[in-house]
Every structure is written in C-alpha cells, then in structure tokens.
C-alpha cells in the first residue's frame, strides 16, 4: 500500500471511528449470537429500544455542548408521562384523537416548562447545572408520584397504543419502522439541522467553547443556555407521552437512571463534558452502541451480575479504542 492511500485510510478510520466501533460491535454480536442478532426483527427491536433515550440524547448533546448537564431527564419522562396520562383520563368522552393530542401537548409543555425553569436558574443566577437539575430531578420524581398518588394511571385510549407499539406504513413496509423509531429519526434530522445549520446551533457551540468570547461577540448567552434546557425538557415530554403509549399507562417509576444512560450515549458519541465539542450523529451512534450492547448481552444470556461487568468492560474497551484511534490521527 502506498503511504498516501494508507494515510487516507487512516484518516477515514479516525474520522469514522465511532461508526467503525459500532460496526465491530455489531459483527461480534452477530457472530456470537450465530446471526440471531442480525435478524430483522431483532434489529427493529434494538432500534425501538434505543428510540426513547436516543431522542432525549439529542437535546442532552446540546446541553453538554454548552458545558452543562441535565440530570432531570429521567424524572421528567416520568412526570410528563403521568401528566399526559391524567390529561387523557380527564376527558373520557372526547374523541381519541383529541385526547391523544392533548396528552402529547400537556407532556411537551410540562417538559419544556420545567426545562425552561431549570435553564433560567442556570443562565440567570449562575447556579451550577448539576445542582439545579439534581433538584429538578428530585422535584419532578416526587411530583410524578404525588400527581398520581403513587399508582400508575391506566385505561388510556386504545388508539394511543400505535404511538408506542405500532409501525409506520405497516401495510407498505410491514413491521419495519416502529412509530417511536420514526419519531426519533425525525428528532435526529431536526436537531442535526438545528445544531449544524442554524444561528442557534452556532451559538450553542460558541457558548460551550468560550462563554466569555461568545458574550463579547454579542451572543445572548443566557437565552441560548435557557433554550437548550427547554428543548431537552420538551424532548423528555415527547418521550414521556410516547412511553405512556408503550406501556399504555403513565407510570411514575419509569426513567430511573436514564440520565446516566443518556449522558453515556452522548459521551460515548464523542461529545466532551467540558463543552464546545460534540455532534448529533455521534450521539445517535453512541446510543446505538449502548443499545446493541444491552441487546446482545441479553441475547447471549449473560448472567445479570456479569452483564454489568461485561457492559463496563465493553464500554471501556470502546473508549480506549476511540482514544487510540484519535491519537493515531493526531500523529
């Protein structure tokens, strides 16, 4: 091989290292499960499992790129889910479409509102994001239980189920594109455009790379900061309503530890917790990596306690590989 072509290959490897790692994982899983992993059903399944946390991870990417963090996402999914379920229950006589629309609206509005409140506190009063969203996490979780008296709200309109368990264009595509997956993909496109092609996205990056410089360049850093938390909250609301549809119940217990999973997806996807650096596509890949891992561990019937160990080891190896490839590229 010539040096030039080797260099091109290397550059490509370094540039696309996250997808490459994902691919390696997929291949290993396929081999270990003797192809079971690669069956369409299972792939669809993995996508569906990834879709909720993946959706939220797009917002979280922006939050983290500004140098912040949002610990409240899991609780927000719970409280918005409960609120949506209560809203749908409160109008049993309305048409299903209206009930469902109201439910989604409630969830998204509540999520966005809570996110905006956290964002305002962070942006306006410079309280550390960790603290504000930790408090929001506690308050939202408590509120979820209080709202429904600790008992999940069920008996939701039947038509809701399609949103959580249905498939888009089922007559055309068969059971290939689950509704939540489509929602996630839409989220991906919207956030990709928002992040890479708009003034807002640029401002987010600027705030995270050097807040003072952004401020001195006339960027409304407070407004930008507030907005990223608001967006993430709205995504949590969307995920909460979708999750109602999946469980056909608004359950105050859902979403525990999601914050860690979501942040892990973002960080595995190459976003720096120090802000300024990150990509939406990386996050999607990161979420997939974690989803594939969890799925194949289950397919392989790895024992519960060993799952944690193996999961830890694989995450670590992937990151080491990532670091190694990055270093190769920096040479």
């Amino acid at each position, binding site marked *: 091989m010539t040096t030039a072509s080797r260099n091109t290959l290397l550059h490509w490897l370094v540039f696309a290292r996250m997808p490459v790692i994902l691919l390696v994982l997929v291949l290993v899983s396929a081999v270990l499960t003797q192809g079971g992993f690669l069956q369409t059903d299972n792939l669809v399944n993995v996508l569906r499992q990834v879709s909720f946390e993946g959706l939220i991870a797009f917002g979280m990417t922006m939050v983290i790129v500004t140098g912040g963090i949002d610990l409240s996402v899991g609780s927000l999914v719970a409280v918005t889910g409960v609120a949506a379920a209560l809203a749908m229950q409160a109008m049993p006589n309305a048409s299903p479409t209206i009930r469902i629309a109201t439910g989604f609206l409630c969830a998204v509005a509540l999520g966005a509102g809570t996110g905006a409140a956290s964002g305002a506190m962070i942006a306006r009063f410079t309280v550390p994001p960790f603290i504000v969203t930790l408090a929001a996490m506690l308050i939202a979780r408590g509120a979820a239980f209080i709202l429904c008296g600790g008992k999940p709200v069920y008996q939701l309109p039947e038509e809701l189920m399609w949103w959580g368990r249905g498939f888009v264009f089922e007559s055309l595509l068969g059971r290939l594109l689950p509704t939540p997956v489509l929602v996630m993909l839409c989220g991906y496109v919207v956030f990709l455009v928002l992040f890479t092609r708009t*003034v*807002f996205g*640029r401002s987010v*990056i600027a705030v995270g790379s050097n807040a003072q*410089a952004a401020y001195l*360049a006339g960027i409304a850093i407070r407004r930008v900061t507030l907005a990223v938390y608001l967006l993430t909250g709205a995504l949590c609301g969307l995920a909460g309503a979708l999750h109602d549809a999946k469980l056909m119940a608004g359950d105050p217990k859902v979403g525990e530890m999601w914050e860690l999973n979501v942040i892990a997806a973002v960080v595995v996807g190459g976003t720096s917790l120090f802000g300024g650096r990150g990509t939406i596509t990386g996050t999607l890949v990161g979420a997939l990596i974690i989803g594939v891992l969890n799925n194949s561990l289950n397919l392989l019937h790895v024992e519960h306690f060993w799952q944690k160990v193996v999961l830890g080891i694989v995450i670590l190896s992937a990151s080491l590989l990532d670091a190694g490839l990055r270093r190769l590229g920096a040479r």
Partner: protein
Amino acid sequence: MREPTPRVQFNGVSKHYPGVTALDGVGFSVAPACIHALVGENGAGKSTLVKILAGAVRADQGVIRLDGNAVEIRSARAASAMGIAVVHQELNLAADLSAGENVFLGRWPRGPLGLISSRKLNQQSRDVFEALGVRISARSQVGELSLAQRQMVEIARALSLKARVLVLDEPSAVLMPQEMQALFAIIRRLATQGVSVIYISHRLDEVFELCKAVTVLRDGRHISTRPTDQTTRDTLIREMVGRPIAEEFPQRQAALGEVVLQAEGLSARGRFHDVSFEVQSGEVFALTGLVGAGRSSVGRALFGALPGIRGGLRVGRTRGPFQSPREAQRAGIAYLPEDRRLQGLLLERPVNENMSLAHLRDISTAGVLRKRIERHRVQQAMREFQIKAAGPEVLAGTLSGGNQQKVMIARWLQKPYRVVILDEPTRGVDVGAKVEIYTIINRMASAGAAVLLITSELPEAIGMADRIAVMANGALAGVLDNRIRAVTQEMILELAIANYVPRAASAVNGTQPR
C-alpha cells in the same frame, strides 16, 4: 579558537502539521551569554521552534545541541532540567492560583514537614516582582490581574528559574516602555552572567536596542543569522516579508464629524473612576497608560461588558451605559478584546466559525445559516488579511499567534460600525500585517467611525491617533492633541508616571489582601 561552543545549536529542525510545514530544516546557533533575536512574519515558525526547545512539541527531524551535546527534549520537565526556561507567546498560568504560586508553579518553596511555606513563597515572589519593577501583590489571584500583569507573572516565573537558556516569545507585546526597560535591564544582567537569551519580537526597535544577533525565519525556513550591527531595519524587513514596506503609519485624511461617543464621569468600582471624553466621527482616539492603569476596563465598560458602571454614556443618539455587549453592538459599537485566547477565540473551532461569530444574523435567513455566503466572506477576509492557514476549516487554536489576532480583527471588520473599540489590535502582529491593520483603521475612520485605540505601543498611538488620552491609576491623567503629530513619548510617559506614584498601592494592586 575563534568562537566558543554555541550554547544552543539547531540543526535541520523540521516540523510538519497536517497541511502545514511549520519548520523546514532550520539550523542556526546561539552563542553563550548572547541575546539573540528571532524574527519573522506571522506563522514563520518562531513559536514552533520555541515549543520544540521547551519540550512542548516534538520535532519531526533534526538535532538540537546544548553546549555541543545532542539532546533529546522529551518533555517540559526535561527542558527545565536542562536549564531551559521559556516564556511562551500565549500565557500559561493557572488562573485559580495566586500570582506568587504561579511564579513558583510546581516548585513551591517548602518549609518544615515538607509543607508549602506561604511565607517563603510570598517573600520570594515579592523579590522577583521587585526586581522586575512591577507592582503585583504575590497573593492576588491571577484570574483578577490585567493582561500585562499576567504577562509579568509569566516573565517572573522564567526569570526565577535561573536557567542557562532563557527564551522569551513576544514578552513585550502588551508592555509599556517603562516596564520594557526594566525587563531589558534584567535580560542584559542575565546575559552578562552567561545566560543565553532567545528573544522574539515584532518590534524591530527592540531587536536593535537589545540584541547582539538576529535570525530571520520565513515560511519555516532559516533565512539569515547576523550580528545586529551588521544589518539594518530595512534589510530585516525585506528578509522577513520578501518585500520592502513603504510607510509604517499610513496617512489619513482627517475629516472629523459630530461627536458619536461621549463618556461623562464613567466609573467602575475598583477599576477606574470619573472618566470623561468625547470622540468624533472620523477620529482616532488613543487610550494609553501604564500596566493596570484601567484602559482595558474602560473599553469593556463602554461595550457593556463590565457590570456596575456609573456615569453617562452616549453613542450617537443611544444612551448607555449598556447592560450587555449585545446591546452595545446594537447601538453600533464593535469591540476587539485584548486577550484573544480568553476573550476572543473559540480555540477548538474552525476559523470560519470564529470569524462569523459576531455577525451570524447577517449570514442567515430566518435563523438558518447560508453557508455559501459565509464561505465566500471568510475566504475573502482570509485573503485580505493574509491569514496563513490551510483553509477556513482549520482550528483557530492551531494558528500562529499573529494569525489568530488577524482572525479576531477580521471578525469585527465585516461591516461598518459607528464606534470601534480596539484593545491592543496589533498585539503579536508582524510588521507587514501591522501596516495592513493601520490602513484598515484609517479606512474605518474615513468612513465615519469613531475609533478608540487602546494601546501600549506609544509609536502606534503617536503615529495613528488624532488625540491621545493617558490613564493613570484608573483616572484620565490628560489628553494630548496630536493632530500635527507633535506628541512625543516623553510627554505621554510624564503624564502616565506623574500620577502613578502617589496612589499606586490602592488602585494598581486592586486585589490587595483585605
């Protein structure tokens, strides 16, 4: 025996970065006890060479000899063990530690039980500061010092190392003549004690005043090394730039209009007080003074970037003081901050994003960026300012210091403003580019802008400004009319120093222990 063994000898040193050759087989030597200047255009490779010597960057090829022995400098630690002390072009200070702790970074003096002795620390750093003639409290937080004060801390650190080889990469870019003279005195003393000094500067006067030999780099290649008394300013410039430079301070037709910037009794607690002046449209108004006098603070205050401002401010018909830079920008002010790394650049982002930052609105419709327009504008600016970078996608942090400064200037010159505040605009910029920047300043003024030029370089103030305001101790000490270019450096210094001595302790050391 004609010549002693060189203290430092570079031999075929090369360094490549993706898309750039920073150094290409550079070889020259520095004699013991010699003050050796290193000059060249922005991006010529000076800092890269320094970083290699400091162990911060590894060369791809080449040999470095110290006192005749080939050495491999694997780390910064190794470099200091070999007696190499470096003041890098960009400041390397821990903002959360005190000035004294930064001077002795990693070498904190210890007392009994091996614990750090703050008494010794403060005593020793006070001694170093005193020798440098600067008034910085050893205990003040570095994050609260002005840029020049930080630069002095950095210099103090290198001096306290007692090195064989001292490297200073543009130490004087923000210093005033007085501070520079104190620094020069120390450098000369060290040289007589046998220390070799490598001195990098874009101010050629300094080179001739201080240095015995001078090496010119261009595009990463070694051009010449000569004793300073065997070369001239013009030769150097020709060797650096490849062409002669016509006139250092280009002429401008002064056509002053109405007053567009009016400050009345502006005060900011602990920084400056009762500052009043007016700047007319078409005028270049310089603001100068000693280190920490409060010039930069005035600039920040005008731009709405300093909280708690009292007093009156008017820009055109808009009344201030402004609550945020955004508001100030809307009122028609552009502002170039003095510290490009801390206040200006997104180091980890590409050049194009850095350039567009202040004008995202102008290159977007309905919030969506028009990338084609952006690319066009950026490429044009890169050409106009001769920014040396592989392309607009290159990370700003990898540019040479002077090129970073040009990116900053380009950011603010994409459209006309009513008031333009430039804080040390030519900091670290080479002679050729300086003229370009001066031309642009003149063009802006001619187009009707009021330019507030904050500068430490007195020739610059004298060569460019219509009037020169001198600050001392956070107050305006006086305004000199320079419309017939009659102001001299002595006149400025007199104003700056006359008011400096009596109240020094309180205002200058704004962060004295309480």
